[in-house]
């Protein structure tokens, strides 16, 4: 039973007076079981390693076709645009399973970022053109903001659009080597804005770059007069980008939760079978407490991710704070679980053959790809400052 203080604290959500339905439904949990079955059959670590070990192999094409056939690419896309028209909660569930399987496909770039951005800010023509192709698995997306080391800002942004043509360089662009359509941040008339650019068209050159996580490829993109079409209103720039990233952060936090939970399971399974000094290492408090710490971080991340899912699914005004919290907690949980999973395994965990590093690598990819946690911490505090001052 919760104490009065605890329930009072819970009531401080501003939603006091409600008993709660803060979990996924049975139908959604069934989807989770089915998604896991599909990925167990089609995305074992042997499949992930094919992408990891072969530099020419950018992603698992068979798996990409498979998830398209499952309808996952259009899970949250309305039926009118060729999607399944489910909600974002279903997409969150799929994301968690993809993260657990360290799926080597451009799902995040295409679904969490491009599809979400077009649904959020695209005009009717853009929606009609882009969303059905995404749902059908015929179009891979990417997001190009970074131009070099450090945090991008309006002051450092160099790429420009002039007369509908894009000039500049972006590095790294996750899935930039395979994407068909890319959202690019660039200045037009001195104002930062977002633009849609077809990467297979004129004025685009791409070069693959090596990354910490070769199961998710990235590229350097150079634009020399590539045709660029504005996404959203002129000058919305960073404000629109923030909205897009908030949505992506919530969905990605589920991938991170899935990966973090898998790391805890791996560590536990190994600790229960590995003997040292005459007993399983799972019986040592140093290991037990390490795994308990993982569990605590994973649960904090999961609870924050759930709140993000609720905010996203209801398009609530709480999306910015919920997204930041979900991303910060999930980045921390996945990093901690992936590094301490290696530590729990000892020497064998440091080998290429063990799967531990697949998760360690993916935790870095997910924590960096839409901005590092410290950037999100600053975003969160700025948001809280404004909210509490108002």
């Amino acid at each position, binding site marked *: 039973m919760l104490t009065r203080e605890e329930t009072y604290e819970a009531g401080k959500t501003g939603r006091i007076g409600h008993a709660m339905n803060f979990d996924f439904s049975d139908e959604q949990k069934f989807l989770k079981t089915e998604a896991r079955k599909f990925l167990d059959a089609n995305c074992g670590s042997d499949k992930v390693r094919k992408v990891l070990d072969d530099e020419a192999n950018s992603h698992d094409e068979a798996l990409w076709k498979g998830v398209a056939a499952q309808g996952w690419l259009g899970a949250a896309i309305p039926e009118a645009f060729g999607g399944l028209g489910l909600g974002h909660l279903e997409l969150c569930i799929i994301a968690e399973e993809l993260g657990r399987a360290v799926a080597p496909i451009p799902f995040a770039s295409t679904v969490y970022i491009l599809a979400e951005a077009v649904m959020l800010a695209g005009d009717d023509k853009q929606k009609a053109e882009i969303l059905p192709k995404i749902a059908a698995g015929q179009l891979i997306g990417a997001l190009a903001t970074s131009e070099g080391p450090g945090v991008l800002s309006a002051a450092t942004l160099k790429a420009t659009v002039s007369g509908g043509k894009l000039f500049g360089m972006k590095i790294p662009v996750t899935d930039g080597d395979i994407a068909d359509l890319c959202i690019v941040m660039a200045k037009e008339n001195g104002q930062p804005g977002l633009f849609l650019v077809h990467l297979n068209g004129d004025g685009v050159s791409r070069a693959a770059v090596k990354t910490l996580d070769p199961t998710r490829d990235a590229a350097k993109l150079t634009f020399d007069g590539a045709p660029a079409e504005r996404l959203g209103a002129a000058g919305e720039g960073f404000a629109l980008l923030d909205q897009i990233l908030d949505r992506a952060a919530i969905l990605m936090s589920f991938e991170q939760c899935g990966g973090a939970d898998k790391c805890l399971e791996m560590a536990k399974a190994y600790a229960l079978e590995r003997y040292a000094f005459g007993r399983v290492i799972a019986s040592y408090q140093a290991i037990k407490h390490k795994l308990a710490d993982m569990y605590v971080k994973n649960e904090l991340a999961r609870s924050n991710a759930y709140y993000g899912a609720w905010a996203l699914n209801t398009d609530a005004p709480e999306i910015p704070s919920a997204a930041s919290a979900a991303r910060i907690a999930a980045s921390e949980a996945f990093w901690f679980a992936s590094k301490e999973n290696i530590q729990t395994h000892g020497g064998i965990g440091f080998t290429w053959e063990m799967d531990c590093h697949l998760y360690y690598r993916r935790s870095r990819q997910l924590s960096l790809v839409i901005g590092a946690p410290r950037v999100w911490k600053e975003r969160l*505090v700025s948001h809280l400052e404004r909210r509490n001052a108002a």
Partner: protein
Amino acid sequence: MDFNDTPEEAAYRAQVKAWLEVNAAKPFVADNDGEGGGSMAASKAWQAKKAAGGFAQITWPKEWGGQGGTPIQQVIFNQEEAKHPVPPNPFQIGLGMCVPTVATFADQATKDRFVGPALRGEEIWCQLFSEPSGGSDVAAARTKAVRATDGSGDWIISGQKVWTTGAQFSDFGIVVCRTNPEAPKHKGLTMFWLDMHAPGVEVKPIHQMSGGSGFNEVFFTDVRVKDSQRVGALDDGWKVSLVTLMNERLAVGGASGAGWQEFMEAARSVPGLDGQAALKDASLREKLADWYVQAEGLKHTRNRTMTALSRGQTPGPESSIGKIVSALQMQDLGNTAVEMLDQFGIIDDPDLAPLHAAFHTSVMFSPGLRIAGGTDEILKNIIAERVLGMPGDIRVDKDVAFKDMPTGR
């Protein structure tokens, strides 16, 4: 996924609201003695009202004066009650832990005698488990109960308990005693209930490092109890006490006190590096974000727990993380706030630093919170063993007679 009541829950909430509006309308003014003792008359009066209305222990069976209600109904009542300025509740240990334990094992006459008065707040109970020689290791209790030599079948209790919450105003208590030192430690304990006003019971407040005295030492000098005051079978006290302790972890709440909002407000007005507000210091902003994320994580973990209750399920193990996170945060946040004040931070005087008193309280109280109701370390063991299914520690005392166990001091 939403935050809404089911229709049944909404109906129950409406009923509760209506009752509270009539019965909890008069504002309660605290005596502000800090330890809950001075407001006792008000607390007892409010408890009696709740009992008369059937809201004192909603989940208890009707024969005990409850409603036979569900846990979520109790949650709903607690939520609504918290909106009213009601007095503190010194009855929770008794009603949540002691009385259910006694009632589970006692005969009808004993139940009839105790359940009603406890429910109405007429009698207060305390739980006498921890000892100077065993806090985390409760089964190492040394307080002994031996048969009286007069053939009455009575028991004579002597020894000492410690960290007993509310002993100073309790009427009864449940106490775990060593009855068979020849047996291994878990197998030689017996539980009794006793009258805290009986001859030979002496309660002394503990002077905490934080300055206050919220807990007590209780000394037993040849306290005589009847065999009918035994709770459960002879030498079976460990199993009986597990029934009691199962409730404790949920009853020891998370940290209250200053949180990220209070820190943020303070940081707005305190000068930081380079003469701007401390809230502009990057290191503090990063910490502020971490605390917010933790607090949100705990809040929504509670929401998940309540959801399980609402769906009629047993809450998952996620509810076990609360105190471990909040107690550590209380210490970290309090200390960071004190360090934010720089040299001035050493001043612990509400007259000179009225806006910062809550942070000093956190610094000085959080060490206790990290220990009470299961230390950080014990809670991590519990997560590892009960949630993750990892093996228990190797027990060197398991098959040793209690009297032969090494004890140190």
